[in-house]
């Protein structure tokens, strides 16, 4: 359909991918800095509550994404793809920059978390409008039979955005002292965003409208009410539901398990040092990213369905063994302590809280630091554990996370092409954005909160392998999605509208 030259399509890919990658970067620095944000913007007398509040805000950022998909999807189908995803870029960049400027809870009180929440909601709205626009824009430029390959570049942006967010945070941490990072340095990754958004805006501004949409507009065949045509029409609604329950729902949970749950699991359940987790996750993401392109390309040859479903099935079968291996890798009960190197120290701070720290070293080079604070005002004692793992364990974890990223690339690489081919030009932006953001944003975005709940519940019940219970949520959701996808989705996609 499209006659865009190879050189031209690379320009389209660069402009679209860069902007989408920046939007993901903006979205993820909030999640990656959740712990420090919780201490700055939420009442600090109960850190667990503060952390959960941040998770709730994080979830709010996800829950609002489908509304962004509806709002901007409608605009994209009426006024065009190009201007809509330029608007989402500016909205995202502005919100991110402003989060980095908000004074802390100690300075402005309740206004601080309120402003963070509002800006986080705006971020969610912007992201809800961005992805569908970028995927549609690229697909409508791509040659017939190569949609999977070209749209897979857009699919790399979420992982690359997460990778860059981790690297910017790591670089800022390394450049500053821990006290400076805690005081103001955590704001730097938010400020960096405005520069990237500015550059991306200028590039996108010079791009042409999608040829397919421009043709439809010229012929007067665009929709006047995309929402009604997308969801009020039974024929189209059944495909929206099929896309959600047979593809994006499972893709969402596999995506968030492989990247976010793995990160949170290593930090909070395995207690691995935060910088080590960021580094090893970054390496695993870097190793896995080319596979988005590979599976996108492969889906042009063998069809989208079986690649996506294989990724889901592998995830269902291997999540529990993988997480068990991850947990055992750093479990100090399996290691030999060098007792003469154990250091115990007790001190009292200015509030008369008693702080006991124990540092243990193990024969394989692992170090374990436990810091317990007994508060003078009889509040519940707090224990902070940090495990610094050796290089061999680090590579074991990189490998185990990489496998999960591989599952992600299988389900996520071909999905943009799968979704854009499912819906006609005049309602494509609206129709594909909603199932994607419900599946990814709601089913996937709620994963950390729901899985943490399962783990906490199992721990309270005294289950020995409590740490694996958080996986039931992605396993169940992916299983239902796998069955629906296998039975109801046609590999040849008879509804291909491109």
């Amino acid at each position, binding site marked *: 359909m499209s006659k865009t030259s190879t050189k031209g399509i690379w320009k389209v890919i660069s402009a679209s991918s860069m902007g989408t990658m920046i939007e993901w970067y903006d979205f993820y620095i909030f999640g990656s800095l959740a712990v420090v944000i919780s201490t700055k913007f939420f009442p600090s007398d109960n850190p667990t*509550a503060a952390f*959960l*509040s941040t*998770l*709730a805000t994080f*979830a709010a950022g996800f*829950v609002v994404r489908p509304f962004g998909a509806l709002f901007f999807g409608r605009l994209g189908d009426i006024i065009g793809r190009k201007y809509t995803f330029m608007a989402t870029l500016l909205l995202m960049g502005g919100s991110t920059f402003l989060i980095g400027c908000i004074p802390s809870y100690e300075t402005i009180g309740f206004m601080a978390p309120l402003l963070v929440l509002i800006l986080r909601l705006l971020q969610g709205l912007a992201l809800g409008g961005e992805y569908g626009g970028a995927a549609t824009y690229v697909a409508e430029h791509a040659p017939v039979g190569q949609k999977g390959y070209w749209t897979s570049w857009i699919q790399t942006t979420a992982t690359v955005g997460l990778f860059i967010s981790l690297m910017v945070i790591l670089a800022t941490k390394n450049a500053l002292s821990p006290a400076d990072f805690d005081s103001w340095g955590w704001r730097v990754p938010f400020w960096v965003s405005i520069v990237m958004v500015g550059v991306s805006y200028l590039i996108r501004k010079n791009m042409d409208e999608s040829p397919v949409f421009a043709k439809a507009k010229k012929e007067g065949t665009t929709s006047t009410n995309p929402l009604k045509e997308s969801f009020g029409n*039974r024929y189209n*609604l*059944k495909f929206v*539901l*099929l896309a*959600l*329950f047979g593809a994006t729902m499972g893709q969402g949970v596999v995506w968030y398990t492989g990247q976010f749950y793995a990160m949170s699991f290593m930090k909070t359940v395995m207690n691995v040092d935060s910088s080590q987790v960021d580094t090893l996750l970054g390496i695993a993401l870097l190793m896995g990213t080319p596979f988005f392109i590979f599976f996108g390309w492969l889906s042009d040859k063998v069809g989208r369905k079986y690649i996506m479903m294989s990724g889901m099935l592998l995830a269902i079968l291997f999540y529990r063994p993988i997480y068990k291996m991850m947990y055992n890798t750093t479990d100090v009960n399996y290691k030999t302590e060098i007792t003469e190197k154990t250091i115990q120290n007790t001190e009292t701070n200015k509030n008369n809280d008693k702080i006991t720290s124990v540092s243990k070293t193990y024969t394989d080079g692992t170090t374990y630091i436990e810091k317990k604070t007994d508060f003078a005002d009889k509040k519940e004692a707090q224990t902070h554990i940090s495990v610094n793992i050796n290089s061999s364990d680090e590579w074991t974890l990189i490998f185990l996370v990489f496998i999960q990223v591989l599952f992600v690339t299988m389900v996520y690489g071909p999905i943009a092409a799968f979704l854009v081919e499912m819906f006609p030009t005049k309602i494509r932006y609206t129709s594909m954005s909603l199932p994607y953001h*419900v599946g990814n944003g*709601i089913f996937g975005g*709620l994963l950390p*909160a729901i899985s943490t*709940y399962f783990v906490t519940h199992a721990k309270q019940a005294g289950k020995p392998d409590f740490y694996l219970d958080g996986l039931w949520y992605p396993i169940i959701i992916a299983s*239902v999605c796998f*069955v*629906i996808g296998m*039975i*109801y989705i*046609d590999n040849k996609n008879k509804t291909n509208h491109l």
Partner: protein
Amino acid sequence: MNTIKQILGVLWIILAAAAAYFCVFEFGLPKLLSDQQDDLVFGIIILFILTPLIVLGLGTFGYFAVIGEYNDKKK
């Protein structure tokens, strides 16, 4: 295959009903009635976002499957 698709439609409707029970009585309401702030937010999200989505969405999908909307049309 069309018969399997239609029969499974009943399963999706039952699953939607089971999810409704689980989300409302096991998950949502206890959280909503808890006096913890974070539980309240969690309960609201489960009850008012996730539950309607699963129940209405999966229920409608099941209904469409039962009435043969997803059947392969004869050529």
